[in-house]
């Protein structure tokens, strides 16, 4: 344990707690946007995954993602049940903190990613189908992609793709999986007639506020130590969120009025976009990345609406497109002056990084979309994806959980 550093350990411990908190924060971000009769169901999509995926991760998820690589495709089973993952650092991943802490920190990413997807099928998915899907998705999509990008020997890591804190692993996978799922499941009854007003926007503001805070752990903690890199990541994170929030406000003001739901959505989109780049760029680049992320997602929502697709809470537009932009922007703005362990991007004279980022994003995007399409289709044909019309009318809280949110 010679190399253990208590300061690094302290920072990754608290970052783990911050990322954990992002899942209930997401629950409220989403829960505020659904109708009153579905709020518990929506909150629970996030909450139950804190439980379910934590178990999956401890038992076999971690080893699939970070076990000894099998040809760069998937991790081996050497860490099954976290055997051999203890208080000693593993220099492959983080040389100054216990390896078990690395596993715990990564667990929180594995938890929140399927929770992000849940925004696409709220207010109509069957709870049982949701559970099975999430477990399969975590195992068959998340764990492999995490291995490719972050695992020693992973194919995309070997390629030189940069993903500081999960723009590809978390946001592109979640966003494009959400798109695929939305194409398989039926729309909500009444979708498109404007009767689906968010029932409690303050909940969404609360969620966004806590997400913003939690993201300091998500991106800052990805430095895996309390060092200058963590600080850079934190500053970039905040700056991108700020820029995207302000730009989204201006966009919605131009079209209508400065929507509060728009402002908080903008901030979240900025956080998404900076995720892959947070440890590789300067604060002013972060400002640019955030500012550009807002219109990308804003118009992606308009596009999605134009296609009459009920991708209910716009996971694709916000996370998929935000993450994609972030991955590409990393290929543009990354600079070795910021992080010597990174690479220079296109704007620093290295077009190769941009192409690698593009390739990595494309591979991930296609894989996530395809696998999810298959999984969702298989579930639809077997146990069915969505509740009956009557259950939907009554609301999932009562129909699926026998509960009412408010009395």
């Amino acid at each position: 344990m010679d190399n253990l550093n208590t300061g690094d350990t302290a920072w990754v411990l608290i970052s783990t707690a911050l990322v954990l908190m992002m899942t209930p924060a997401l629950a409220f971000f989403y829960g505020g946007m659904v109708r009153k009769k579905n709020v518990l169901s929506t909150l629970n999509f996030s909450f139950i995954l804190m439980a379910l995926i934590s178990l999956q991760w401890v038992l076999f998820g971690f080893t699939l993602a970070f076990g000894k690589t099998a040809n760069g495709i998937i991790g081996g089973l050497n860490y099954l049940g976290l055997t051999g993952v203890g208080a000693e650092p593993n220099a492959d991943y983080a040389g100054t903190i216990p390896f078990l802490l690395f596993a715990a920190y990564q667990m929180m990413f594995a938890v929140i990613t399927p929770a992000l997807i849940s925004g696409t099928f709220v207010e109509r998915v069957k709870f049982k189908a949701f559970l099975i899907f999430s477990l399969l998705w975590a195992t068959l999509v998340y764990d492999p992609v995490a291995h490719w990008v972050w695992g020693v020997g992973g194919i995309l890591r070997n390629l030189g793709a940069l993903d500081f804190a999960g723009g590809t692993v978390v946001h592109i996978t979640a966003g494009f999986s959400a798109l695929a799922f939305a194409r398989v499941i039926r729309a909500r009854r009444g979708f498109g007639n404007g009767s689906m007003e968010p029932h409690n926007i303050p909940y969404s503001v609360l969620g966004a506020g806590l997400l913003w805070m939690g993201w300091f752990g998500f991106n800052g903690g990805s430095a895996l130590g309390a060092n200058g890199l963590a600080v850079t990541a934190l500053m970039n994170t905040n700056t991108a969120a700020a820029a995207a929030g302000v730009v989204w406000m201006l966009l919605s003001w131009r079209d209508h009025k400065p929507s509060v739901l728009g402002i908080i959505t903008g901030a979240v989109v900025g956080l998404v976009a900076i995720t892959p780049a947070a440890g590789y760029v300067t604060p002013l680049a972060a400002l640019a990345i955030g500012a550009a992320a807002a219109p990308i997602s804003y118009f992606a929502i308009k596009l999605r609406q134009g296609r009459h697709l009920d991708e209910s809470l716009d996971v694709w537009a916000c996370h998929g497109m935000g993450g994609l932009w972030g991955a590409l922007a990393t290929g543009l703005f990354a600079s070795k002056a910021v992080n010597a362990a990174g690479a220079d991007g296109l704007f620093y004279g290295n077009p190769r990084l941009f192409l690698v980022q593009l390739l990595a994003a494309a591979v991930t995007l296609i894989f996530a979309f395809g696998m999810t399409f298959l999984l969702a289709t298989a579930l639809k044909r077997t146990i069915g994806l969505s509740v009956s019309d009557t259950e939907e009318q009554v609301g999932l809280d009562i129909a699926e959980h026998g509960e009412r949110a408010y009395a």
Partner: protein
Amino acid sequence: MTKKIEAIIREEKLNDVKDALQAIGIVGMNVTECRGHGRQGGIELVGRSGAYKVDMLPRVQINIVLSDHNLEQAIDTICHAAQTGSVGDGLIFVYPVEDVVRIRTGERGRAALMYPGDIDTRPLG
């Protein structure tokens, strides 16, 4: 004879109406929140990206049970206080009432409808 007034007005006009009624001595009333739909088509709300229409708008319904000789004055007062002149100002409905009982005292009929400061206890003028 006793009548019931049901006035459906804008939420934001409630205080004005309440004060105006109190000023002429109409004290007892009962208010419910409701959503309505009439000549006004609905309003546009802004979402994350783009706007959408909400066609049931929040209104407040004031119920007042009163003697019919105060009816016209009450209607006038409400109309006056609740008007903005743009669509959506609302409607007043009048219904017959057959009986009134005051729970606390058991008083019935007109007697049950007297209040301190009531319109019917004021000197004429």
